[in-house]
């Protein structure tokens, strides 16, 4: 049985790696609006798992 997820085809040529973006995800985690939203989402997911 092959459980490998199937992927859609898309144009990879539109992507360019920019190493100056590498720390942006860490910046996101310091964003207060994101932190608030993250807490809200975790509560929603916890409730939906019950």
């Amino acid at each position, binding site marked *: 049985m092959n459980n490998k997820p199937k*992927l859609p085809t898309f144009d990879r040529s*539109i992507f360019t790696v920019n190493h100056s973006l590498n720390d942006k995800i860490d910046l996101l985690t310091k964003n207060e609006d994101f932190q608030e939203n993250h807490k809200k989402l975790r509560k929603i997911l*916890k409730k939906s798992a*019950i």
Partner: protein
Amino acid sequence: MNKPSYKIETSADGLWYEFVSDSQHKSIRKGVGYYLYEENDIEYAELAFGDILPNGNIDIKAISDNQDMVIVLSTVIITLYNFFELYPQKTVVFTGSSASRNRLYRAIISKLFEEGRQFFDVSGINYDGSKELFIKNKDYLAFQISLKNE
């Protein structure tokens, strides 16, 4: 997927994407982030989307209305495709920071659902906490996407 989309810059790990929303009115730098975390043995990636501010931070509450919604939605969906190529076992989740942002997310999911339902399991989480397969045009509190297994 061959819909018009913007050129995308990405971090090396594929967790952060930026592109420029361009119209006759203005150019706005947009960011899409996938924040990885684990809970109850499920590997989640929380999607965040917003405008990039001059200081490099992201405003996830921004409503820019730059008359290019279709291209922006297609571009965000392509970041999802790329993300799942790199992280096929993750479950992408998100909720809007406001009702209008949730409507935007619903539009993204509707478009994804139209174009890629054969690839993705898409669920909506209702306001009472119940989860169901996504129904187009229905209002949800949060959304969940994972790749289908072959």
